[in-house]
């Protein structure tokens, strides 16, 4: 039986101070051009939490607005105010920085995160009021230490500062004196990823309506690496986050593939459930501090706010078929192989048209394609264009080539089968998966019958290969069969009884 998508969680964290202190564009600039105009200008382009809440794409990400709603809003969006500015949505929430710093401390099990005690006292009640928090997590938050000690750790012990509204309110200590893999910088990056993954896990469990104890396996698909000098990427983010989230019956592992990681992980989760190895698997990922303000120079130059101020996270619950929820169809898988090549046409061919060809389907048999759903408000001013649109144009061009649509319908194809991007440029976060929550709802409502999720990854960034990568899969309307469907025990007993009666009758007839 095919596995189903039982629910999903999508979360954002507004991290303005981490843009300044942890985004690599800014940390690099501080080294190569410390007195440059960019670093001077940058602070005046930072958004407030309220501005982040009323930003259209953010409200779509947590489910208060739909991609269709967003498509109807004229671009650009940074200068428009969304009519909904709720921090909670049906898929998750937007957490403010001060609460997240406390959650980071709760997610640290090696006593590395130190917070100013006044900061803890002032902000703990707000985190306690968060509906996804429970006593086990809140009990992990310590009282904090003196602000002077925090400053000493940053100034003398190589600790990474934690700032809020420009003030030092805590730090992340290094976990080893020499090992760069356990440096304060790396520990900070990894704890942020872990804490945002915990938020996504808690949201997904709640939204799917399952108990935490039902979860048997967790796959983390972020782009960070945790380990020490003897096993740089040993892992395991999945189990570490599951521990804090209280998923006591789960084990897990990490799947990596740059931005394609989430799609690889979804296929692996579906295969694990469909095979019967595990009944309930969650695919999860936290966000990335390094990418905060990645395109900030272009945004500042053009007078825009810093739009890359959100850490993202998502989690999807994959379970055995319940006869209701949308199915993951592992018979229609796209894969970019070693031999595919890197030309955009070859990439989309391998991920979209090749699997459909094998399944005997037309491009138009897929109602919605979800490739890379980056928010164009961020990418267009930076010169990267509208990434989802570029994907749709190539899919449409291949559809014309196959004769699935007429050339005159190229533009219409993008509107009918495409989506407007809304996800933050957090690498793996926008890659295919942002639509899964909406796709589940659209499939349940009968608005669509099939959606294709496409993940693509830039393997060459690791300097181990020049290859590109990607995989795709299809989510479809549930066929209505349940796991228990087929022949029940009662029916089997009835069939055996009937066969025995017939056999007995035959014997009696022979005896006569």
């Amino acid at each position: 039986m095919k596995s189903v998508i039982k629910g999903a969680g999508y979360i954002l964290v507004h991290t303005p101070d981490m843009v300044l202190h942890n985004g690599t564009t800014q940390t690099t600039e501080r080294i190569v051009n410390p007195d440059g105009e960019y670093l001077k200008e940058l602070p005046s382009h930072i958004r407030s939490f309220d501005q982040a809440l009323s930003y259209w794409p953010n409200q779509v990400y947590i489910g208060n607005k739909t991609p269709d709603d967003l498509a109807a809003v004229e671009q650009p969006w940074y200068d428009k105010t969304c009519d909904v500015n709720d921090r909670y949505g049906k898929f998750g929430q937007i957490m403010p920085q001060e609460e997240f710093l406390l959650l980071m401390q709760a997610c640290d099990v090696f006593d590395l995160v130190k917070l100013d005690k006044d900061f803890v006292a002032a902000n703990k009640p707000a985190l306690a009021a968060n509906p996804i928090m429970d006593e086990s997590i809140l009990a992990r938050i310590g009282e904090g230490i003196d602000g002077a000690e925090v400053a000493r750790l940053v100034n003398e012990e190589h600790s990474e500062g934690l700032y809020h509204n420009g003030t030092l309110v805590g730090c992340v200590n290094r976990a080893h004196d020499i090992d760069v893999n356990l440096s304060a910088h790396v520990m900070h990056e990894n704890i942020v990823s872990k804490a945002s993954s915990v938020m996504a896990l808690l949201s997904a469990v709640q939204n799917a309506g399952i108990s935490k104890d039902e979860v048997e396996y967790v796959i983390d698909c972020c782009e960070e690496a945790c380990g020490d000098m003897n096993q740089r990427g040993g892992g395991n983010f999945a189990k570490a986050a599951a521990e804090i989230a209280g998923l006591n019956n789960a084990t897990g592992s990490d799947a990596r593939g740059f931005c394609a990681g989430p799609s690889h992980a979804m296929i692996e989760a579906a295969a694990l459930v469909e095979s019967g190895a595990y009944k309930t698997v969650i695919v999860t990922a936290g966000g990335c501090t390094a990418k905060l303000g990645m395109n900030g120079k272009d945004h500042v130059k053009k007078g825009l706010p810093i739009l890359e101020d959100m850490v993202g996270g998502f989690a999807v619950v994959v379970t055995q078929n319940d006869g209701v929820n949308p199915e993951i169809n592992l018979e229609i898988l796209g894969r970019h192989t070693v031999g595919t090549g890197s030309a955009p046409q070859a990439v989309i061919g391998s991920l979209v048209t090749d699997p459909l060809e094998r399944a005997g389907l037309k491009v138009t048999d897929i109602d919605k394609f979800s490739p890379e759903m980056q928010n164009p408000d961020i990418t267009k001013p930076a010169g990267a264009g509208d990434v989802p649109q570029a994907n749709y144009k190539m899919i449409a061009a291949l559809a014309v080539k196959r004769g699935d649509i007429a050339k005159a319908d190229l533009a219409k194809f993008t509107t009918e089968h495409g989506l407007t991007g809304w996800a933050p440029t957090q690498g793996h976060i926008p890659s295919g998966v942002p639509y899964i929550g909406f796709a589940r709802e659209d499939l349940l409502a009968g608005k669509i019958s099939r959606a294709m999720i496409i993940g693509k990854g830039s393997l060459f960034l690791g300097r181990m290969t020049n290859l590109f990568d990607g995989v795709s899969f299809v989510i479809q309307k549930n066929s209505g069969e349940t796991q228990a469907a087929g022949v029940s025990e009662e029916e089997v007993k009835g069939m055996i009884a009937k066969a025995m009666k017939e056999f007995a009758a035959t014997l009696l007839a022979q005896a006569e």
Partner: protein
Amino acid sequence: MGILAGKKVIIIGDRDGIPGEAIKACAESAGAEVVFSSTECFV
């Protein structure tokens, strides 16, 4: 031969545009000597 013939070329490709490998193949076919080629990601 084109304007790239005999020239040394440095290539920065974009993963959401034209990848470095593709530009490299074009440049070399036009007679250029590619001294560095990479593809970068901005998303």
